[in-house]
């Protein structure tokens, strides 16, 4: 498992993070961000439950971010 991003930042002067790395494919990133926003802002499930699910999923999949 890498401890540093494996791709360079797509934004000059800005460090590597998920946003600047995904910026290499901006249209895909925008589409992904759109669905991510909908998952948080729409639907019947309470936001606190969604956050618990997100954290549990991160734990199960070993995502430390």
């Amino acid at each position: 498992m890498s401890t540093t991003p494996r791709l360079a930042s797509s934004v000059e002067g800005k460090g590597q993070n998920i946003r600047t790395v995904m910026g290499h494919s901006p249209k895909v990133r925008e589409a992904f961000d759109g669905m991510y926003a909908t998952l948080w802002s729409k639907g019947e499930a309470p936001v606190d439950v969604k956050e618990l699910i997100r954290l549990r999923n991160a734990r199960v999949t070993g995502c430390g971010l």
Partner: protein
Amino acid sequence: MSWLLEGATSREELLELHPGLAADHQRILDELWQSSVDPRILELCRLRAATLLRNTHAWDEPRSPAAVAAGLDEAMVQSLSQWVTDDRFDAATKTCLKLAEQYVIDVHGITDEQVAEVAEAIGSDGVVTLTTALATWEISHRFDNALLPQQSSSTNGDR
């Protein structure tokens, strides 16, 4: 039958229960298929991930129109499980399929060298597109497995 919608047999029917999400999901798919990555590679990776996650629905639905338009070879599709030793799969395709398999089986096992190989083959934008596509396919496959009627493996063979 599906637990959510009686008579539903497709992902699209279930996603329409949440139209906003369905639209966002479709937009991601549209961007992926129109991206710089060869749609034939994307389709082969999608189907390979489907096999590893045991989603037969993905094999039974129509192939990606973008991949077909780009010349997807159905004979290669049917030989997908032998991609490692099949010379019809070029180096770039094999590099991407290797990442796709590692992503599904053990994402933490992906190495710096492996990502560098993929970047060499399809560029940094391609790496972002491919990994986002793999995440999208994984969501689709698990969604199908969780919510669509299960099909008999005996009728679908070992794909």
